[in-house]
């Protein structure tokens, strides 16, 4: 039994096991010298790091452990043509030049496996249980769904990893969030994580690394688990993880970079040991019941400002103050005590590293098959990767979307952060499956309602915020 304690050894959490296995050096008064197994980079947060290497005259220490993709800046239409925006084109070209110069593998624009960094890592089998994974992007926490310690870093740290494959890190505290029971009809993993954040606030996880557990989490597919871990940063946590199990192993087996043959067997034996000991202690434990969760929607300007779709906007959000609540609602053009049901919307965005995988697209297609979008709503579906896009087309989902009037585009981060042309105009409302409802996040003046792909699809069809449960059997 992997759970059996060695004599004299303290029970450990999964987080502690992986962290401790990656400590190169521990010295009193210093942060741990932590080894990084896998490093992902993209065009926006890497150029200054490569400049740093050039200034120091050093190379990339372990080129095989860094993988690059262009995602944040790329257009989602006409990707075969040169990028129109000069600055975006220069940044994407700079990534190509840097990867060529330093010998790094790049999934460039046009590559048949290009896509959002947190979608392609798992898809290619680069993300594996027990690893430490970093990227200059806060949603690196996505990879935690495989039982990894994965977290976002700044550009100075990107340079450190390129130069040494290590980082200096203080060990965060641990938090367990348990969700027990069975999810109700119309409630999906996005609703779980929006519910958790609405309960503990946008800063409730700061200083912690979260492990998600409980029967509701165990019942989820890998893609659904990724959605949950993805948004760990939205409660301030460094990252979030889920212990690997048969669902994880089945997802990984046969993927391009997953171990093969005898190596697979060795890996599997190790991966099966990756779980928290039964009597391990956490710095904090929070428990929720799955049956309390409904389809969720945010109303404010941080992801902690969310409600169950049948609830009313509160006077003050958890751990917020009245002035900030008023500022937020004024930006959104909403009132306290108001229900969001029936609220007219202008845009629907289905995409981002949170919800752009094939299961998300299938869920949306199943719902809209035989339905049409509301006339005055623009609907963008942006797949997370070229492979997701190809799979959607192979399954005929593109035809379902076309018939419904949904605009299926090419992969990228798109309207999640609106670095490309995909911007929601000022004052307009967008129901979005992305992860942030900050002021101006989807374009200057844009107003975002975060929701699940199902809730977004329902809004697309009715043109209003709608309880999807009223439209499904």
């Amino acid at each position, binding site marked *: 039994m992997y759970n059996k304690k060695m004599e004299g050894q303290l029970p450990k959490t999964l987080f502690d096991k992986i962290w401790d296995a990656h400590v190169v050096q521990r010295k009193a008064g210093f942060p741990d010298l932590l080894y990084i197994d896998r490093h992902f980079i993209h065009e926006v947060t890497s150029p*200054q790091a490569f400049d740093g290497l050039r200034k120091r005259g050093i190379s990339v220490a372990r080129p095989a452990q860094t993988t690059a993709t262009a995602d944040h800046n790329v257009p989602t239409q006409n990707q075969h043509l040169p990028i129109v925006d000069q600055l975006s084109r220069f940044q994407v070209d700079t990534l190509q030049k840097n990867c060529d110069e330093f010998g790094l593998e790049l999934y460039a624009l046009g590559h048949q496996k290009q896509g959002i960094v947190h979608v392609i890592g798992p898809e290619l089998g680069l993300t594996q249980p027990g690893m430490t994974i970093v990227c200059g992007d806060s949603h690196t926490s996505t990879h935690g769904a495989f039982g990894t310690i994965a977290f976002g870093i700044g550009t100075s740290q990107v340079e450190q990893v390129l130069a040494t494959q*290590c980082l200096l890190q203080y060990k965060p505290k641990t938090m367990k969030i348990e969700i027990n029971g069975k999810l109700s009809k119309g409630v999906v993993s996005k609703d779980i994580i929006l519910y958790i954040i609405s309960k503990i606030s946008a800063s409730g996880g700061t200083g912690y690394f979260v492990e998600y557990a409980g029967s509701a989490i165990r019942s989820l597919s890998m893609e659904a688990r990724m959605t949950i871990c993805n948004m760990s940063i939205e409660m301030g946590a460094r990252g979030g993880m889920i212990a690997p199990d048969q669902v994880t192993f089945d997802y990984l087996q046969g993927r391009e970079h997953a171990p093969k043959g005898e190596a697979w067997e060795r890996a599997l034996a190790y991966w099966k040991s990756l779980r928290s000991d039964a009597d391990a202690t956490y710095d904090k434990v929070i428990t929720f019941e799955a049956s309390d969760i409904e389809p969720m929607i945010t109303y404010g300007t941080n992801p902690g400002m969310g409600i169950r779709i049948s609830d009313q906007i509160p006077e003050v959000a958890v751990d917020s103050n009245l002035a*900030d609540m008023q500022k937020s609602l004024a930006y959104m053009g909403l009132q306290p005590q108001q229900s969001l049901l029936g609220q007219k919307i202008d845009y629907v965005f289905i995409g981002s590293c949170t919800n752009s995988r094939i299961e998300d697209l299938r869920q949306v297609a199943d719902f809209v098959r035989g339905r049409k979008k509301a006339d005055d709503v623009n609907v963008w579906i942006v797949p997370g990767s070229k492979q997701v896009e190809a799979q959607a087309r192979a399954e005929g989902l593109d035809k379902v979307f076309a018939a419904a009037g949904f605009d299926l585009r090419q992969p990228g981060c798109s309207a999640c952060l609106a670095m490309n042309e995909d911007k929601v105009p000022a004052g307009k409302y967008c129901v979005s499956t992305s992860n942030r409802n900050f002021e101006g996040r989807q374009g200057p003046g844009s107003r975002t309602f975060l929701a699940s792909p199902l809730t977004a699809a329902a809004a697309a069809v009715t043109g209003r915020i709608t309880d999807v449960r009223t439209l499904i059997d």
Partner: protein
Amino acid sequence: MQFRTLISRCVPLPIENIDTDQIIPARFLKATTREGFGENLFRDWRYLTETTPNSDFVLNQDTYTGQVLVAGKNFGCGSSREHAAWALADYGFRVVISSFFADIFKSNALNNFILPIQVSETILQQLFQAIQADPTLTIEVDLPNQELRVADLQLQVAFEINLYKKECLLNGYDDIDYLLARQGEIEAYEATRMTF
């Protein structure tokens, strides 16, 4: 670059959960160098249109100036973009005081020799009130003694910083120098590392 002490006036921004998208909106992240981000610091709060400054925003008011930003709790949440720290530094801020900082921002700030000082919510509110009452209020930041002093308020507050980062700031060291000096240990670790 180094940081030891600073005597400065303060710029108050009593808003909570200021995310890095507000500090520097994503559309300004297209530069490939570290310079020039200060121009777009708090861009969408600072400007009403492309060219019209918002006179209600604190950075556009002559009343307030200084190298210390005092901001509401959970400052720097959201995106990991180090551009937020670059923008603050480029604009001229060397210290940010708040009652709570987001983790990644804190680390990015320290890596750019900006000192994040965490104080209690009570002290933070006291500072906001004092700055509002007297915009010329001067504070003294003393890193060697880890102390924040406001003579006018007869206030002396100790603040936390880990020893390693304190040494880095005082001496102008950065993590990469430290890491590059550990090549031997890293290689020894790699020899025992489990790979498949």
